[in-house]
């Protein structure tokens, strides 16, 4: 019962944040100076072939088509209505492609890099930090300095270094893109074998940074727990170290879950920029192009996706922390 109430509260808060995020997602791209139709019509005028009056007509036509002639609040409600029907709109810059199609093409590439990076980075980072704290000595010093270095490098900088060393100088892996020229994405072993050579570098640039950050956090938490009273008491009772280690891990894990949720936004942003470095055809490249062209629907759609991902991650972390720590559950549901 307490748990259900705890989860209910968390879900309700997530929904409130989602509504606010939806409004900001709509508003922020539209606050960028300039008008997408001006850009499109400007390009037409440069190409020649259309007179002033025709351009005027095309301009009005586009304004109407995109709904930009309506007041902002009406646009917002149309946008919200469409979003809830799963329609993210039509791209301005790549007219008449629908945003859904563009995202569907880009999203799998981004997920393919980021999801494994988050999972592998979190697990390896925490294990490394915990082992370093237990073993101490040279292993600890080496792991700590290495992790500290990795966690303070921005992913895109590491991406550039890896790109230069492994792809440009070493020539071991391809320089950019997601698959070889001439292939089309399909579910076949041959395509997978090709695509994975392009996948390694962006993946490593993310996962290394992430392992570093997690290891540094876990190490200090584990060292702190090692000195706590319950570890001493367990020792005094002759409890096997193997059992006590589980107590320590569980307690040290708590802030790591919260940290995971908090850092997921940073990891996604880092991933988007890393995609640019490797010209990887994911959301990052799509977003970057869209910002350059004032393509409101695409920008809004991608930021909305990121918002949802971050919100879900936070919700999941909150619920997991509640499961692991009875005190948090008790405080949140108002029980003891």
């Amino acid at each position: 019962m307490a748990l259900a109430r705890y989860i209910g509260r968390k879900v309700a808060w997530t929904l409130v944040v989602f509504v606010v995020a939806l409004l900001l997602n709509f508003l922020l791209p539209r606050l960028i100076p300039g008008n997408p139709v001006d850009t499109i019509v400007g390009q037409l005028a440069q190409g020649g072939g259309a007179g002033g009056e025709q351009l005027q007509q095309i301009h009005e036509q586009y304004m109407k088509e995109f709904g930009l002639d309506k007041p902002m609040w009406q646009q917002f409600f149309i946008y919200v209505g469409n979003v809830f029907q799963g329609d993210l709109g039509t791209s301005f810059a790549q007219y008449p492609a629908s945003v859904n199609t563009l995202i569907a093409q880009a999203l799998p590439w981004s997920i393919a890099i980021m999801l494994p990076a988050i999972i592998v980075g979190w697990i390896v980072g925490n294990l490394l930090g915990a082992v370093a704290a237990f073993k101490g000595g040279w292993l600890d010093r080496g792991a700590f300095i290495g992790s500290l270095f990795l966690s303070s490098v921005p992913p895109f900088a590491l991406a550039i270094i890896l790109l230069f060393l492994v792809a440009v100088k070493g020539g071991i892996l391809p320089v950019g893109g997601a698959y070889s020229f001439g292939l089309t994405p399909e579910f076949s072993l041959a395509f997978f074998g090709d695509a994975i050579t392009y996948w390694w570098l962006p993946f490593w640039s993310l996962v290394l940074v992430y392992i570093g950050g997690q290891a540094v956090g876990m190490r200090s938490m584990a060292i702190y727990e090692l000195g706590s009273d319950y570890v001493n008491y367990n020792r005094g009772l002759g409890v096997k170290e193997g059992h006590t280690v589980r107590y320590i891990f569980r307690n040290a894990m708590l802030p790591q879950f919260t940290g995971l949720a908090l850092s997921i936004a940073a990891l996604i942003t880092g991933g988007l920029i890393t995609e640019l470095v490797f010209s990887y055809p994911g959301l990052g490249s799509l977003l970057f192009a869209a910002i350059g062209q004032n393509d409101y629907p695409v920008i809004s759609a991608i930021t909305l996706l990121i918002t949802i991902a971050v919100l879900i991650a936070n919700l999941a972390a909150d619920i997991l922390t509640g499961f692991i720590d009875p005190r948090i559950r008790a405080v949140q549901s108002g029980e003891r």
Partner: protein
Amino acid sequence: MGTLVNAENIRGVYYTEGKDVVAVNDVSIKIEEGEVLGLAGESGSGKTTLGSIISLIARPPLHVEEGTLEIDGQVQELGGHAKIPRTWRGAVVSMLPQGAMNSISPTKRIRQLVYDVMRSHESKISKEEALDRARERLTTLGLPARVLDAYPHQLSGGMKQRTVTIISTLLNPRLLVADEPTSALDVTSQKILIEMLLEMLEKRIMSGVIFVTHDLPVLRTAANRIAVMYQGKIVELGPTEIVVERPEHPYTQALMSSVLAPEPAYANTRIEGMSSFDRSLFDAPAVFH
């Protein structure tokens, strides 16, 4: 009634940067079968250090340079790099920690700790059997069996301290070293805890208790004998009434006169201040009644 524990020539030193601090200086002490031995003294006198050496949990920066512990004819070397078997802890000598508040991991239920303690010593024990035994012990000593299902934060301070006391003695240790077990409790809870300890002793759950505390009134009710420590040495040792009412060592006299609710003999005397280290106290010969 024979001797239960014979601890001899214990020397405990804190290796700190700059200089080494000798906290326990060549102390020998015997605990008789069935008795509560009070270990009193001011902060820094070495009583907690002696307690943790005897309960076999000394760890850096504390180093045991010398000492042996004899229980039931078995002699365990404590000094240097002596290997102390893990199973001695908890089953032969057990500890009751100072302030039980943080002694149980906040994210584990009591029953998990109970099970882990039992199976660390009896690898074949089933979870049911371990919990059954704990349940029986709890009810014998007047605690509800449902504390097993609680998390530490769900228990009150007094309840938590009593629960920890029971966990400490689950394996029927020969000796229990209780380090300031009553310090964080109100007077009522203190009384209940001491009565419980005495009941456990009577039931032979453990055969002897070392009660480390600076709280002299508590020792007066709980201890059969009292050892007074000062500057890493035992300066006076004897039956409770004698040490409390007719102490002979100047430090013990000063300590007794500083109790706020003094013995009648001191009720009308002026409280003398004490410097932190008094050479004359240190040089005075130890008194063993």
